[in-house]
């Protein structure tokens, strides 16, 4: 996975951003690769917009270094950075036509009139708005405005495109369609995208890599698969998808694996995280689809409980199971035609983590 520094688009080293006493960004170290679709994901107020604004140049950083293609850009104003932004509410210039909006950046860069006109038209065709060149932004639907904002930001050919929750103002159907389109645009143009969202599904489906943020700290950076399957801490495990978190104690440490004992005494094997200590308290995360369910048996130390709720989800069925400690555990089973086993509320069941399903969390 080690990439050479040459194909990095944006690099942040130890970046802090403070508003008075409030620290909005805490020691952000981040490498965004060239041509990558990178997503910043996190709950509201975690600092995603702040991080984008820092990269765009709208906010001065309090500490640290920002590099674009290996060059320091920390002191450059926004208009000197070859980076463009798609704003959350688009910020299309209301007094200009769609075409003038798209042409604006190229004009400011001093491109020739013919070139600007030609490229504006091409960009508008690319976002399928060729017939709308003469309209004003307020004569467009939300989805169309969004495309104009996209065309406007991509027209000057930036090295990095920043997108701040560009889909949040669209309805569900349009949002899904735009996901596919955005991803295609990114692959066609090869521009590095830094995309901000608080929608984990959006992040998982579109991104090459995801950075999960909370409280101004970058919690984990990795591919969607890594983030989902190997969350490093409780926040990431909880935030991405659904999961069951169990209190446990480490009972045995091997080379690459270790064994943890849950509170009811059953032991679960899992991949060893960083430096596990025998006897240490820890948390285990097991996804709903990582638990296997069977009829209750008399094996003394197995995890088990009573089915409290059954939710039919089409391809899956989801069960809520009350375990003796009082907690609710979510289990999801695929509905196959062959599998005739069905459980109903009140059934006593036994639960067993599938191999490799349990994930040791550092905190």
């Amino acid at each position: 996975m080690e990439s050479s520094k040459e194909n990095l688009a944006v690099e942040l080293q130890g970046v802090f951003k403070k508003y008075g006493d409030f620290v909005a960004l805490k020691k952000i170290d981040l490498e965004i690769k060239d041509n990558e679709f990178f997503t910043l994901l996190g709950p509201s107020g975690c600092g995603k917009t702040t991080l984008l604004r820092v990269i765009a140049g709208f906010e001065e950083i309090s500490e640290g270094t920002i590099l674009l293609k290996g060059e320091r850009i920390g002191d450059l104003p926004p208009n000197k950075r070859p980076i463009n932004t798609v704003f959350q509410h688009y910020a299309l210039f209301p007094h200009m036509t769609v075409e003038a909006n798209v042409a604006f950046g190229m004009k400011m860069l001093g491109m020739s009139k013919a070139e600007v006109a030609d490229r504006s038209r091409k960009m508008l065709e690319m976002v399928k708005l060729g017939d709308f060149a003469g309209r004003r932004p307020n004569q467009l639907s939300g989805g169309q405005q969004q495309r104009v904002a996209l065309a406007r930001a991509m027209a000057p050919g930036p090295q990095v495109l920043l997108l701040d929750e560009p889909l949040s103002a669209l309805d569900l159907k349009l949002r899904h369609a735009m996901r596919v389109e955005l991803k295609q645009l990114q692959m066609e143009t090869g521009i590095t995208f830094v995309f901000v969202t608080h929608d984990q599904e959006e992040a998982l489906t579109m991104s090459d890599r995801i950075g999960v943020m909370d409280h101004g700290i970058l919690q984990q950076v990795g591919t969607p698969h890594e983030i989902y399957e190997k969350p490093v801490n409780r926040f990431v495990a909880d935030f991405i998808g659904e999961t069951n978190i169990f209190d446990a104690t480490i009972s045995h440490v091997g080379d690459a694996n270790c064994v943890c004992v849950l509170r009811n005494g059953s032991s679960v094997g899992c991949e060893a995280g960083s430096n596990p200590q025998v006897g240490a308290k820890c948390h285990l995360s097991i996804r709903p689809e990582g638990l296997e369910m069977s009829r209750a048996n008399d094996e003394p130390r197995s995890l088990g409980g009573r089915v409290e709720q059954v939710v039919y989800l089409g391809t899956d069925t989801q069960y809520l199971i009350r375990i003796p400690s009082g907690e609710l555990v979510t289990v999801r089973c695929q509905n196959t035609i062959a599998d005739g086993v069905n459980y109903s509320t009140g059934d006593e069941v036994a639960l067993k983590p599938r191999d490799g399903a349990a994930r040791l969390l550092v905190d």
Partner: protein
Amino acid sequence: MALASRNIRKYPGFFSMTLLCMVLLYAPLAVVAAYSFNDSLSITRWGGFSFRWYLDVFFGLEADKFRDAAWNSLSIAFLAATASTIIATAASIGMVRGGEFRAKPASFALISLPLMVPEIVTAVATLIFFSAIGFVRGYATILVAHIVFCIPFAYLPIEARLRGIEGTFEEAAQDLYASRGQAFRFVLLPLMAPGIVAGYLLAFIISLDDFIITNFVKGAGIETLPTAIFGAVKQGIKPNILALSTLMLLISIGFVTISYFVSRKGVKPGGHGAPETT
């Protein structure tokens, strides 16, 4: 409807109060306008319809005096409105976009204070100021005084407009490689334009209409329309004054109307552009 009992129109005396106010406000104006077309030397007895007093304003004995006064009034209003609008625009950008600074509330009070100070006090103070620095009274003193007292009138509509314009437009412009100057010229200024025009027109009318301050600082031998009319009236009201007043009224109404439509039109700077979906 249940609300009907609270309808303000149901209060006893509402209608008569309204009528009284309207009559007090507008009856004198209506009388002046009507009698300006009176074909008689008297200003109280109707002698038939005619334009003679309008002709008298332009070609009569006092025509030269009125023409000079009109020229002074219009040129001073034009220059004072222009200067005060430029100053007010700069001030509003400083106040709205300048971030937080300690002297901000004080600055705002300073800008809008002239609206609350009795005009006679300003007039006396201005006169004392000009005498103290030995400024010879004349056209220049009127102009300077007008620029100063027009600033708050130009400032208020411009500031209101600017407050409604989201900062993201300027950020978007800078993001698209515009320098600060270009962002101002191509994005902020066009968006502010309706406010600026409204402020300009308001300043223009205020200057055109001013009597008290002008009368104090003008010095001998120079008149504006209001001081000229005041001077003429001192020897008794002739019907040509009614014609002149009606003309000024028309100019004012014209400006207010333009100002109203300009500030209502303009592109809505709300920003979100109503992201309705189809």
